[in-house]
């Protein structure tokens, strides 16, 4: 009986749970209610705390998507929001200057001048006619100041959108280290 030590309590467990079953049906009901209330409070605290954190994070990072055409019709408070704008890089518009890259995004027949001054190098896929997604703020002069630039090579991603297999395109061309 080498193993007996390992298993003896098994009896006790079975016995105890039988006994407990009988108790739980009896006069112990009130404490059960109390316990459930305790659990409810515990769960409530966790959920509320996490909800609060989520709300904080939401406020910090919410970003509005707009098309280039929409930008012109935004009211002043909407213009101040952090936003993402997508479009096609106009041919020959990329001008690299010290510390900044200027280019023009086109979409729906409109054009948007963009200045990118982020520290990360622009992605390899950022070339003329590529589809780019810029994230940042709209300046008072109508020029978009981008902090991040994502680019998709148009010819390649048309057929297989959303990224060729996990992680490839969606995040792939993202230069930012966030």
């Amino acid at each position, binding site marked *: 009986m080498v193993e007996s030590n390992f298993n003896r309590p098994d009896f006790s467990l079975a016995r105890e749970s039988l006994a407990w079953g009988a108790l739980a049906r009896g006069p112990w009901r009130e404490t059960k209610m109390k316990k*459930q209330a305790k*659990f409810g409070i515990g769960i409530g605290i*966790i959920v509320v*705390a996490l909800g609060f954190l989520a709300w904080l994070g939401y406020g910090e990072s919410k970003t509005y998507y707009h098309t280039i055409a929409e930008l012109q019709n935004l009211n002043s408070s909407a213009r101040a929001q952090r936003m993402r704008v997508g479009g096609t890089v106009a041919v020959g518009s990329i001008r690299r200057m010290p510390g900044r890259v200027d280019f023009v995004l086109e979409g729906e027949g409109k054009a948007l001048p963009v200045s990118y001054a982020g520290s*990360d*190098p622009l992605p390899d896929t950022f070339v003329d006619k590529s589809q780019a997604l810029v994230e940042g703020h709209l300046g008072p002069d109508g020029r978009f100041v981008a902090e991040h630039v994502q680019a998709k090579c148009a010819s390649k991603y048309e057929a297989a959108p959303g*990224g060729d*297999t996990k992680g490839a395109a969606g*995040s792939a061309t993202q230069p930012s280290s966030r």
Partner: protein
Amino acid sequence: MDVFGSFALLLAFVCAAYAFLGGIAAIRTRHPLLIKSARQAGMATCGLIFLATFSLEYLFFTDNFSVAYVVSHSNRDLSTFYKIAALWSGMEGSLLFWSFLLAIYVLSVLITYRNKNGELMPYVGVVMAGVQLFFLTLSNFVESPFKALAAAGPDGVMSFITRQDGNGLNALLQYPEMVIHPPNLYSGYTGFTIPFAFALGALLARYPGEKWIHLTRKWTMIAWMFQSAGILLGAHWAYAVLGWGGYWGWDPVENASLLPWLTGTAFLHSVMMQEKRGMMKVWNVWLVFTTFLLCILGTFLTRSGVVSSVHAFAQSNIGPWFVAFMGITLAICLGAYLKNRDYLASENHLDSMISRESSFLFNNLLFLVACIAVLSGTLFPVFSEWFTGNRISVGAPYFNRVNIPIGLLILFLTGVGPLLAWRKTSAESLKRNFGWPVLTGVAVGAVAFALGFRVFFSVVCLSLCVFVAATILLEFYRGARVIRARSGASYPACAIDLTMRNTRRYGGYIIHMGMVFVFIGLAGAAFNRDVQKSMQVGQTLQIGPYTLMLQGADTKPEQNYTAQRMLVEALHDNKPIMMLFPEKRRFAGNNQENGTMVAIYSTWKEDLYVVFAGIDPETKEPVIHAFLNPLVKWIWFGGVVVVFGTIVALLPNRRSVLVLAPSQQPSAVEPLPPALTSSVALREGHD
């Protein structure tokens, strides 16, 4: 071969339809021949899917550029490995590959249980066939991988054409992990179909007791293992190829792979509540349903581009199909639940805050909240557009704020939960089990703080990691000591013996240990640094204790691309350690694409991560971007440990005749593994 493949696919569709409809008829009539024929139709479906998949691979290997899919994802110069991987590099092939992996699972299930569980299997077969039917519908009628290449001639008439060469595989995908990451992740996604089929089947059949959980435990763990490995391989891939210095960016596609993992992990834990205490039956069934739906959602998000694209649904026509399928599945699950919910009544109630039950409860709560947080963050652009008309996205700060505390709480429970007794834990046993681990954890935290690590979450994480590791090691030590007292063997031999007696429990501990390593690695992210500099040959760049010296540059033509390499010498405290070759690859093919290859010098303490970021347009000098990322290696190592632990947990327990007799429980359907119940002894001090 393309005609052969598409016929195989069409026949597979017909067989799946028979397995589905015939299966329903078989359940209605209980006719044994009908049951058998439905099962065999299910097997034939799998065989035909295999044929279709192999014929698509054949087309890749024979460079058949008359097939549109081959043209867009391969070229003649592509190496053999990537020709295999080209199968899942686009939407059509990925959907076929999904069916292929699912067919492996389905066939294994059908063969394993062909003569067992006669009441349940027809239901399971119908559910599996239903899922297959959906994917085969997509492959046959919506996104066929065998579509022939056609082009309009000068007269405007469409005609079939054959190209000389293909467009080549996307540069970002030409990396070794492309060959293993998607199969892993997809095996995870598809694998959760099996527990789903059993859960739904058991509910529909009103199959008694916990049997479906026992039957599906191994399948769930296999799926979970692949999912875990797939996620980490994806993170590693992003780290090694994308060159932004990180491995996780809360990208929708990354989140999509995490979601079913979260609910799947919750499920693996909460099933124990049902097995041991008959609780949380409704919860478990819904966790499986949710996990499966999230797998479908994950496939959908990855494939459709609904979230990452600026224009929803514009890029793909599979979106409505997936939404419809998820809607129908949800409706069926809900219907089955409402009809048969009475059989899921709980047998026990929670007794105490400090008990194994409550630790499982909180574990599940946290996993679920994490899942909801990630899901709502990922789908926020879609929902905000529906409700407010504005497309609003949330970024990393949102995800980090919620998920870091959740991760730490779960880590805490990882240490505490397994050592709490069922029902109620005494203060004395708390002291005995947690005294030393808590002390070591706090001590390490204090030392880290004294050494100047002042990032709150990282220090807490490190403390918790040490605490959890200590509890696990203590468990192994205690168990081994008991065995050693009798056998007199060495401690490592006893620990192995102990593990083999109860693979599920100790395999679980090994998995927990792996997660501890992963968390150690994650804690390091708070201390990442980076420096960027445009450099001439001979110039140096300093980052932490490392000096990088640019020695030169060269250009290397390869089979499929040309590499522009920077020769960078890395020195640690002015002692040369190694040469690093960060490179840019320019791929041949119709699209002149670039790829980045990061050079990494990896140690247990930190990774030196060097990127050749391009040529500065002003100075014409190469720009080197160097990162110093502490502890990253622990993440990959932790992943290996997790997979190893899962394999251990999948092994059968070593038989031990002596212990079988006393562990029989009258109520249990199957006798529990003896050592499982014995664990209570070691913990609660009943001995």
